């Protein structure tokens, strides 16, 4: 089996060997090249011979460790944080980029459809170069001057300036994409340049989201603001509310118009109609009182009304009375001593029940 296969090196193999090399930086140049010499050919042949890509190009760190161990070389010296003077290689971040790149390329190679998709994506890279140029100019357009709609050709406030700047941006972006202008693209570049490009590309993806946000912001500040503000308040603020204001206590009266003590209220779906403990306060300073829930065992229920009250300068009734220097718990003053009696719309044949045994809790949801 000595036939020469003469396999061209695949990019994943190169990336993988670069990965492994990055983990042998503590060895001398001679030792390292001795260890890596011919490795690309060996790995390429393994793949050409039908070995599974994932088996051959696994974890480069583990691979480097196995190489070292078998070659009788010491384990990698821990030299993280020593990358400030970048003598040979600016450290682990570059390794990480290589690893992500190798992992991604390996992933793409796994399936025919992903290979196709990657080919398509590679072919339409120029479209991305144009798009990111547009995003950059539009961002500047949005960030400067008064608010305006996002347009296909940014205006920049002056005639012809927008199209001109866009054209220049597209040219620059394309030159960078082609690798002719700093920071360029591709793996064999300084770490800083690679990082800068990654950051710039991520920004180009994320910036359009800010277009949407600034749009919304400007709209709120304009004529429709009041409606939206109210809508957001209602949508985002928790607790029991009426017209956007917190409900702090509830007083239920029976059909005879007499106040019910301990009315337990639920929505039609069984959810308790809760007042939030920290909303259930009235007045300020020495006048301040907090609402206290009725007890079920030791836990306070805040859907049982009316809530009792006790003087307390800060916090809610859930806190220890001693800690907050709270006053005694008392029954609150109802808004009405009594209200007019009412009759049920449902015809009832049975004799009237006693008012005190009235069943509360038929509140609609």
């Amino acid at each position, binding site marked *: 089996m000595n036939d020469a296969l003469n*396999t061209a090196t695949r990019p994943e193999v190169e990336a993988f060997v670069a990965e492994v090399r990055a983990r042998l930086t503590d060895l001398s140049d001679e030792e390292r090249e001795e260890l890596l010499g011919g490795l690309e*050919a060996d790995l390429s042949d393994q793949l050409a011979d039908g070995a599974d890509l994932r088996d051959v190009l696994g974890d480069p760190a583990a691979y480097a460790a196995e190489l070292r161990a*078998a070659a009788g070389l010491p384990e990698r010296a821990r030299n993280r944080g020593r990358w400030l003077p970048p003598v040979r290689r600016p450290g682990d971040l570059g390794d990480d980029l290589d690893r992500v790149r190798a992992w991604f390329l390996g992933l793409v190679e796994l399936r025919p459809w992903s290979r196709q998709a990657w080919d398509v994506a590679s072919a339409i890279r120029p479209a991305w170069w144009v798009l990111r140029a547009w995003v950059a100019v539009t961002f500047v357009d949005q960030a400067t001057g008064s608010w305006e709609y996002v347009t296909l050709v940014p205006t920049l406030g002056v005639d012809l300036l927008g199209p001109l700047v866009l054209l220049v941006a597209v040219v620059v972006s394309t030159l960078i994409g082609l690798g002719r202008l700093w920071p360029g693209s591709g793996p064999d570049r300084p770490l800083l340049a690679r990082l800068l490009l990654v950051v710039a590309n991520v920004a180009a993806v994320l910036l359009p989201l800010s277009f949407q946000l600034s749009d919304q912001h400007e709209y709120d500040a304009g004529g429709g603001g009041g409606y939206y503000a109210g809508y957001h308040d209602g949508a985002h603020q928790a607790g029991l509310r009426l017209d956007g204001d917190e409900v702090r206590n509830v007083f239920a009266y029976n059909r005879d118009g007499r106040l019910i003590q301990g009315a337990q209220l639920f929505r039609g779906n069984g959810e308790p109609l809760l007042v939030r403990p920290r909303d259930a306060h009235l007045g300020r300073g020495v006048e301040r009182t907090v609402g206290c829930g009725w007890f079920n065992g030791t836990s306070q229920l805040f859907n049982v009304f009316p809530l009792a009250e006790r003087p307390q300068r800060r916090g809610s009734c859930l806190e220890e009375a001693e800690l907050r220097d709270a006053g005694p718990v008392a029954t609150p003053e109802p808004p009405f001593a009594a209200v007019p009696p009412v009759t049920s719309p449902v015809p009832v044949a049975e004799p009237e029940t006693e008012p005190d045994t009235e069943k509360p809790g038929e509140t609609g949801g």
Partner: protein
Amino acid sequence: MDTTQLLKGVLDLAVLAVVEDDDGYGYDVLRRLRTGGLTEVGDASVYGTLRRLYAAGALTSYVVPSDEGPHRKYYGITPIGRTQLEQQTKDWASFSDTVTALLHHQTPHHHQQGAAS
């Protein structure tokens, strides 16, 4: 059973054996070992072992350039390597006999015990 640990001790011997008659590059050697039955052997272990044997003088190496692909690094056995192979072959035979005898609950001869340690 997991033969990985067993393999470590005899990988030098196995690698020397498969290049004894015919030079080979890394993947050649790996293929010969796997074809020969050591299917579990890891490629990095084999490549690392080749490098170590080369550093120890048991192997020579030379690069064969390729027009299309990357260069291949071939390894061939040296006189030192042959001596090592002979010695280790004897050691292995003796060791193997000893363990086999142990496994059959026989009392091994004294000189076999010595070789095993």
